[in-house]
């Protein structure tokens, strides 16, 4: 057994992700034509839209993991929820960067309160709070239970924020990035390819991040069992092998 979180699966998945990403970049940056109005700025769409999709998917997995954890207390789903949230937050950074950089050439300003970009930024901040809660040094079951509740409620909020902001900008005829872009066949294909590439990368990251979380979990349990044995030692011997649940 090797000494990293890598495995045959992650190596193969990683290779596939890299290849797909390379092709997607080629299409996105080279083969696909510039857009009629935005010229080449449209190429940022291949970055902005897929990263939004991955971020939403990540936070959706967090919600699912939180629900399963609250129902049957399985550590696996608790750790998956935490790992997926971290990846969601990382991809939120990507979508904010790409969104702002796409806005500048298109509207002349980095931030023009585009409904999608605004609501995804609020989502990003919300899950920074979720990650902060998970890092607190609380008793593990207390922390996981509170994180699970937050994991479920936060996703509900993502939807509320999404529609209220959309409604608000719709009121003032605000424009959404890329809504008026004329997409021809090749551009659509590049977008699709880019989405697949980012999904593969996200999956690869999730597996590794989960295994890191699992190792951390094991370390705390080993630490606990060692403390238990030491504690037993205070009495000089006494029954050994009492396996903690």
């Amino acid at each position: 057994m090797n000494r990293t979180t890598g495995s045959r699966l992650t190596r193969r998945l990683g290779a596939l992700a890299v290849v797909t990403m390379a092709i997607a970049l080629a299409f996105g940056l080279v083969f696909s034509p510039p857009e009629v109005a935005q010229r080449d700025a449209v190429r940022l769409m291949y970055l902005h839209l897929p990263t939004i999709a991955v971020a939403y998917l990540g936070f959706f997995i967090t919600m699912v993991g939180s629900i399963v954890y609250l129902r049957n207390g399985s550590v696996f789903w608790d750790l998956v929820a935490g790992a997926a949230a971290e990846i969601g937050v990382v991809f939120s950074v990507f979508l904010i960067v790409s969104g702002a950089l796409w806005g500048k050439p298109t509207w002349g300003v980095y931030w023009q309160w585009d409904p999608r970009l605004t609501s995804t930024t609020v989502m990003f901040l919300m899950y920074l709070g979720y990650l902060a809660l998970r890092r607190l040094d609380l008793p593990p079951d207390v922390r996981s239970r509170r994180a699970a509740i937050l994991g479920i409620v936060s996703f509900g909020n993502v939807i509320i924020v999404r529609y209220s902001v959309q409604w608000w900008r719709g009121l003032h005829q605000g424009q959404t990035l890329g809504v008026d872009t004329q997409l021809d066949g090749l551009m659509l294909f590049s977008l699709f390819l880019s989405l697949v590439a980012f999904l593969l990368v996200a999956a690869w990251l999730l597996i590794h991040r989960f295994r890191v979380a699992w190792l951390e979990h094991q370390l705390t349990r080993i630490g606990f069992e060692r403390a238990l044995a030491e504690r037993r030692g205070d009495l000089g011997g006494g029954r050994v092998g009492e396996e903690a649940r």
Partner: protein
Amino acid sequence: MLRDAWLMARKDLRIELASKVTIGQILPFGALVLILFGLAVSPDLTVLGTDRRSVLAQASPGLFWMAVLFAALLTLGRSFAIESADGKLDALRMAGLDPAGIFLGKMLAVTAQLAALEIVLGFGAFVLYNAPLARPLQLIVVVIAATTAITSAGTLYAALGSGLRVRDTLVPLLVLPVLAPVLLAAALSTEAAVFGESSGGWPWTLLLGVFALLYVGVGMLAFGPIMEES
């Protein structure tokens, strides 16, 4: 369950009357925030739009609700600070009160205190920002809906942060993104009520009401697991 809620609310309000923290500290803080907004946005700037109205008056609904939001954060923090000292959470668990009742009770107490704050801060905003008052009745409905929306979500998130050393920094980070749409809806519906705009702002008020109901339900459900800590 309602009995427990009423018991908790009465106890919280009696503590407030005895300690006068909300009236004595949080209310002046709210008024101060209103004034600071006034200083930040110079009153003589005028809006280019249709009728001549100062930027300050135009922004007064949003500024008012920002001040209320800050005051709400302090009131919520206070409401859970009194429980976490001296092991009172253990005593509440030993008493076997219905967690949903505890949630409703705390929420009611904070809502009452916030309503009192809003009345005073409301007058302050009208005076300081000399905003008109086209439809007072609609304003009252809007304020009720917005306040319950703030306190229902606020109480749940304050509970998530309760008992933690980092409570004062974590709770605002958790609750403010959640209250972003509430601030948006409250500001827009207040704008409609205050300036008497044709759009009426009623859809936004509806959003506030739905948000409040949703969070009362979620809060009552989530309080069981939150109280159940070892």
